[in-house]
């Protein structure tokens, strides 16, 4: 099966680079939790692609979390994730959350580095 191209791929890659920088390490140390994102290209529940944002280790992995239970798991549409990361969307209503609510609340759009435009 051909891998599904997500708009969010670019953002996760940017986040991965960001987490390697000093500012990224500061974010990691501050939050120190593990999140998983299930992203649906079109409709929630269909062809979802998972990403793990491990802010304990400071890394982004394509795929579900292998190290046990995440602190919070978010499920949303690919498009909404881009808007969320760009700070353009209020997560309420488009986002399904599983896990600890307080952990979920610590994950804010501020975490994503902003994308400059060409």
């Amino acid at each position, binding site marked *: 099966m051909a891998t599904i191209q997500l708009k969010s791929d670019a953002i996760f890659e940017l986040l991965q680079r960001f987490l390697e920088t000093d500012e990224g390490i500061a974010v990691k140390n501050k939050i120190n939790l593990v999140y998983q994102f299930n992203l649906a290209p079109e409709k929630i529940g269909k062809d979802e692609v998972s990403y793990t944002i491990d802010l304990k280790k400071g890394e982004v992995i394509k795929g579900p979390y292998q190290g046990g239970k995440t602190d919070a798991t978010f499920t949303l549409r690919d498009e909404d994730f881009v808007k969320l990361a760009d700070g353009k969307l209020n997560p309420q209503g488009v986002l399904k959350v599983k896990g600890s609510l307080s952990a979920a609340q610590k994950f804010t759009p501020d975490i994503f580095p902003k994308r400059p435009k*060409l």
Partner: protein
Amino acid sequence: MAMRELVTGGAACAVPGSSSSSNPFGALANALIGSSSKTQERLKEIPSSTTTATEPPFYQDATAEGRLRGLPGAEFDHSFSHHPTPQGSEFLRGFRTADQNGLADAWDEIQRSGPPPPPPALLDHRIPPPQLQPTLDGPPQRVLSNFLHSFVGTSHGGIPFRPSPLPVLGLSEGDKQCIRDRSSIMARHFFADKSEDFINAQVNALLSSLDIDGDMRAKGPLPGRFRELEDYWNESQGALRPGPPQADGWVAEFSQHRIDHGDPNAWAHSFEQQHGANGWASEFEQEQRLVSAADQMGGANISNLAAREQTRMLAHTLAQNNDPKFQNSKFLQFVSKMSRGELIIDDNQVKPAALSSPGDWATEYQQQYTGGPSWADEYARDQLSHGPDQWAKEFATEREQSGPVDDQWVNEFSKLHVDDWADEFGRQVGEGAFGDGSADSWADAYDEYLNEQVVAKQKSDASRGVYVFSDMNPYVGHPNPLKEGQELFRKGLLSEAVLALEAEVLKNPDNAEGWRLLGIAHAENDDDQQAIAAMMRAHEADPTNLEVLLALGVSHTNELEQAAALKYLYGWLRHHQKYGTLATPELSDSLYYADVARLFNEAAQMSPEDADVHIVLGVLYNLSREYDKAIASFQTALKLKPQDYSLWNKLGATQANSVQSADAILAYQQALDLKPNYVRAWANMGISYANQVFTSASLFTAPSLVPSLASGMYEDSIRYYVRALAMNPKADNAWQYLRISLSCASRNDMLGACDSRNLDLIMLMGECMVLLTPRITAFGALAEGYPDFGKNLHGQEVGKSNMVYWS
């Protein structure tokens, strides 16, 4: 009056042809900012001063130099203030043209020499100054400026303002209004550390000695709105005067309540006053309560009445809150309308009550009191005998006149899903957020929600690729809007150019060049959705235009739409005279990134001197996130086209994507040197500052200093976002980023202004940020052993509120 105008220009009392630098309050604010040598040192570290130094050609107004220095690039402001209002009395004109520099200089002198010694500038006029109080005679403008100076002077000692008697100044109503508004707002910033009572006392002292009515009307509805109606009513009253006195009194009563026109309660109220307090109204109300308690009436009515009763109580509670911001909030208006029965909730939808609601009410009343002769009949007879038809007509016309203003937001509101709103409300109440102090933050949140909905609607149009035209376009009907648009674009007035070009494409919908330039203007204005929509139309009109194809490729890359971006970039190659042969038509059905990149590399080998090929390659590498290759491509292109500002921005954005913020800032700087009004580069600059917060902070070992340093970086980013937004208030991304930076910089006080998109207020508060917050940039503070680190200009320790944390 827009608040930014307070400092940067004068709406109410602008003088035709005057630049904003001649605003007395702006000059005073500058004098204040400029008066502290420490502030100046700090300001030198702001990147904007570099811009300033390297861009003499754009500097047309030397007196504007000090103005708004805290905001990068603000020196270009004057180009935007070209809509002066014709008002403004001869007097203020004189005041304006009076030597501005002299004014600021005089103020500087006062500041440097400390309060007691007399200001030398005043001595020049051979008038002995009485202590702090400056002289108060001479020509009116001198008197007024000295007077205002002495008012500002009290901000330093925190001493109450002692007004001295003034000669008659002959201020016009407009002048008074202007002084009243400005002094009230400025005072709140001068005396930010003082109590509200103190501020009011100060302002009142100032106003009363200037013989200005202190009634700010800030808490009431906007005064201008009903002026027309008032005239109208005075007229109609005159017409009715010959009628029986009873009707006359009734009309007068109504006219007193004109603000609540259309409000059945007010109507009832006036009726009640005529027929005694124990009239039908209270009886009816009691009856209603009984009935609803007994739960004997129809469900819908009960819930509406109950809702009205509740909202009436809520409105009463809310009305106790004196905050003018809150008083003017849409939420309070909403609650008031609910309580007055102008809005009803029906099937979870808010609906405006029908225009005839008093009649409905009457019918309802009649149904209950079918026994006796109903008051409505009586009243109707009464009306007939007094010829009230005239009144009714007038009332109807008036409703029509005022309808658009009032009903606009109602319509807006009724589009929303009320249950979301209700849930939110319930949650907030549950959390106890609805206490005294937080009531207005709640109202803010509600306003924000409304704004979001409106924006979301526009966005959804735009995201469907539909171009969204501006509502009011002064260029419609212009004889040659394309030429005008090109001229405006060349001058860098992007938002104006957008309007002119919209007029062009409305006139000639198939003008590819009009659409193309419109798309470019939107892209430079940092609005990719509109840029894409315009470029699509350009593409329809001229499918082989290479610039359009490249622009579409770039915009789709920005929006992370890889397939679409590839399609247009490949189209560029296919339609290129020289490289078209490389493209194989069958490829266009199933494009793979690798194929397209390979073809472009071949093209680059064919003609390595063609900058455009390298530009497209750079975009392609951005698409595949091979940033190092992209940077190399753009750098090659820049060697061939060093004057291409958009290319410098592309390089900067790529470097930023590759986490090279410092390099990115240099590239953006180049772009802005070439095109000072390049909104996208300003916004990108802000992003780079926001993203490099911790890089810079981590240069220093003392961890306790990190938060303040970071805060400084955020404030730099805020400056750039604000700058971008000042040029294009519709730049959506910049608003979002500004919000994040504000919250990261713990400027929660400004979030409300950000959410309601009140840039004027943000800029005004930004002025104070420069005044009051220690401005430390990465290399300044520790290297020079900054003595006042952690203190503001008053020597007070800066509390935790100025610290930044990731949250």
